[in-house]
């Protein structure tokens, strides 16, 4: 239990680093040096200390919204297995709990945006609910299929059934084990769902964390924003909470990806190292991806997101094929 708490706190700490690493990657790619890796954390502390300005139009809902969003991210994080080890808490169907808890945070973020009475923020809210409706089924198809294939319905349970588990480090050295794990994966029913799962999760990072090509986090034009425009009127601690919840949400999805990749037989320390390594890899690839790609036109974003659904449908086909075999 205490180890699980440490891993949980590690993930929280790493989330700021991950955001910093993306910014740094983009800066380096553009030929600049960029801000320190911990800049998002410094910003968080700075914002917490600042005083805030609140719109006269708003109601208590606006005050609740950032806290609800952060609470949702913090709670959802408790069911995510970290570094190849079980999550802080796990129970049957906790992936549904994960998705609905995050949805609760999103619901309040949207309400907070509408509460200001600003048409710009309404626009952001409108895009947010549209994209959510499109990405949600893909996540459920992936997790649902994996649940069916493994017979487990908790994220921890599903991850514990990945074929790499069967290969012990003691059986004949690191390379042999890696080869064995790859061999086990290649014949596993779970191979295609795991690959597709990673693609869908990667796309959902882009959508949920407002990255390119869905949303440009550095844009200065409100008309093209999604997430940024919903928080135009947030300031001080509220803004800090919102930023933290977005960073944590991005890291959560990243952690789900690492969970599919990291073999379960590694030692706790090696697991953590691998976890940090893969997370850094994800952050760097997001940074590079953002540097080389332009933001899509808003009307084309749904097509991009529906791509995730079609990848998820592949899994469904595999499921049907797998059980008929």
């Amino acid at each position, binding site marked *: 239990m205490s180890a699980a708490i440490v891993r949980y706190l590690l993930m929280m700490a790493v989330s700021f680093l991950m955001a910093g690493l993306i910014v740094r990657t983009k800066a380096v790619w553009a030929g600049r040096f960029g801000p320190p890796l911990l800049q998002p954390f410094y910003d968080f502390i700075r914002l917490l200390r600042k005083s805030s300005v609140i719109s006269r139009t708003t109601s208590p809902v606006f005050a609740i919204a950032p*806290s609800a969003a952060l609470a949702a991210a913090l*709670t959802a994080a408790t069911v995510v297995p970290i570094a190849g080890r079980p999550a802080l808490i796990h129970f049957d169907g*906790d992936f549904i709990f994960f998705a609905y808890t995050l949805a*609760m945070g999103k*619901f309040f973020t949207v309400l907070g945006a509408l509460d200001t009475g600003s048409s*710009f923020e*309404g626009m952001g809210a409108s895009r947010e609910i549209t994209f*959510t409706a499109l990405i949600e089924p893909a996540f459920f198809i992936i997790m649902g299929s994996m649940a*069916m294939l493994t017979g487990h319905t908790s994220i921890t349970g599903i991850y514990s059934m990945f074929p790499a588990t069967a290969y012990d480090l003691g059986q004949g050295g690191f390379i042999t084990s890696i080869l064995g794990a790859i061999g086990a994966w290649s014949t596993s029913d779970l191979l295609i769902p795991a690959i597709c799962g990673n693609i869908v999760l990667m796309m959902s990072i882009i959508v949920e964390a407002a990255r390119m090509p869905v949303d440009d986090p550095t844009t200065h034009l409100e008309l093209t924003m999604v997430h940024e425009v919903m928080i135009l009127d947030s300031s001080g601690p*509220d803004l800090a909470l919102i930023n933290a919840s977005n960073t944590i949400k991005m890291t959560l999805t990243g952690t789900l990806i690492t969970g599919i990749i990291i073999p379960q037989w590694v030692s706790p320390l090696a697991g953590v190292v691998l976890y940090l390594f893969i997370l850094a890899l994800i952050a760097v690839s997001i940074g590079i991806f953002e540097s080389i790609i332009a933001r899509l036109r808003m009307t084309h974003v749904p097509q991009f997101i529906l791509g995730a659904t079609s990848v998820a449908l592949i899994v469904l086909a595999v499921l049907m094929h797998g059980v008929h075999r």
Partner: protein
Amino acid sequence: MGIYFIAVAAVVAGGTLAALLAGKSDDSGLAALCAVTSVGIAAVAVVFLSLPVLFGGDVISETFDLGAPLGAVRCELDALSAFFAALTSITSLISIIYITGYMSSTQSGGSIGFHYMFFNLAVASMLAALVMRNALAFLVVWEIMALSIFFLIPFQRGKVRPMSAAIQFLITMHVGAVILTAAIIIASSGTGLDFSNFTAILSSGSTKGTALFVMFFVGFAFKAGLMPFHSWAVHAETEAPQGVSGLLSGAAVNMGFYGILRIIALTGATSPACGYTVLFISMFSAVFGILYALIQNDLRRVLAYSTIENAGIIGVGIGTGMLGRAYNLPLMEVLGFAGALFHIINHSMFKGVLFYAVGAVYIATGTSKTDRLGGLIKTMPVTAFTFLAASLAASALPPFNGFISEFLIYSGLLKALTPSSGFIITLGVIAVAILALNGAVTLAVFAKTFGITFLGSPRYNLSGAEPPPSMSMPLITLSALCLAAGLWPDFVMELIQAPLVSLGAAQATLISESNAIAGNVARGALLLAAVTVFVLFVRNRLVRSPASAPTWGCGYEAVSSRMQYTGSSLSGPLVKLAAPLLRLIQKRKFIPRAADIPGCEPFPARRIKYAAYSSDLIETMVIDKLLIIVRAAFDRLSWIQSGHTGHYVLYILAALALFLFAAVFRGVA
């Protein structure tokens, strides 16, 4: 059983007395008291009768010999009946309390006394229908229920739309009743009218048994508001007074589900075909119900379509349970039925709040069009926050009750693991994805509905005051219950145990396993609530004396409240994606005119008139087309209505002769 019928009779008597009292004096307070007291007494009696049945496993049963044509009428309060009876009586009590407040606040224009009388009659007939085990007696009570609700819908005299909604309700209910009657005739031929006689044919597994099940299901689905049999619900719940809409959505729809579950209980072992029928129709309802809710801009229509969507979710639960039974997956069966029963309770609670809050908004502002409202949270905080709580529950978000029931249904679908059929596994995942899509769109619908109506600033300066306590108390009570059932679902799980047993989904180990599944996720929801409160506490410590300023207009100075995002613009992008499914009709009309408005230079001077309509696909594509065929067929037969008295006498004679011959012929054969 005697006490039960005394309670039912008390409701009828109370209503009649209310009608008499309201007719005598101008003061309707006494009539209201009479109606509320009678329903209150009945609710207490019914709950006290139901508790030992639900928790002690008793079954109260009695047979009354009513003579021809009904014969021996068996009445029984088993767990399934007790569950629905307790729920109906409590929902009705809250509804009638609300109605008394609503009626005293609103402009009358109809007879309040008769309104109470038919309300009580509707409640009494629902309670009576729940215990009838004689098919003919059941049909009679079922008919009284439909008729009394028919009289409830058009409250204000002389208004066309409520009246046509009521007539549509009556016709639709009769189409359902005809199918039910046919099913009952088939099921009881050669055996008897008692429900217990139906088991043999329903459980036979033959094509006839399956067809009979589907007939019963369709007959009851009309009442349950499942798509494509939902049309009445949209119109009736939109046009009826809000208290009645609460009753329709919180009790009348449940009667349909009672019927479906009763047939399942009678059937016992179901065939997969029956399960697939229920599941497919329900998935269709869940998705299309919420998509139609998304395009509505009238609060009442949003809620009406949301009823259809929730009926779909309940149906998905029932279908899951049936498939679990058909494929011998007992945990899937228990979780599906448990989720359905749990969601029936939840839907009655949160939909009550939503309808009652909309009623309060309607009284305060005179409109229920979302795009004309805004900023109501400042003048009506109680209404707004209860509506928010109910919206969270309706969107199945933790920590509210809707989440627990949908979680149970999800869990049931994920237990569709059987080596015997790959189809059911894939179908399980598809149903999970459908529920996820439904959940995301529901979030959009309720974020829009709540956000546009209550948040921001008023769009047309429509602001109202809080409703009287008789209207706000039901709101507070029900939304508190929604939260309580979401955080501590254990009591509700206990409550649905006995109905699960009477559905045939017994086995103590499985029930305790499903209780554990609900308990675990409720601990998670409790954690979420605790973390939220904690973060909010910390946040409030950090945010001290914030400065106040207008909303940032991104550089534009002359922001007006009319520039806020409207409901239509909020749901626009999503609606556009779903438009091919919804038959959205948009009309733009440019009205050219000289640039005579001073100060509008940056904006186009011509006015644009824009209107968007959505037509219900089922109504335009199925019902209207069917009506054309039916009308054409009846036109061909119009020569029968010749208008000559002699002809009609001849028809009577011919009919009598026909029956005589038929009787003689049967006697010979």
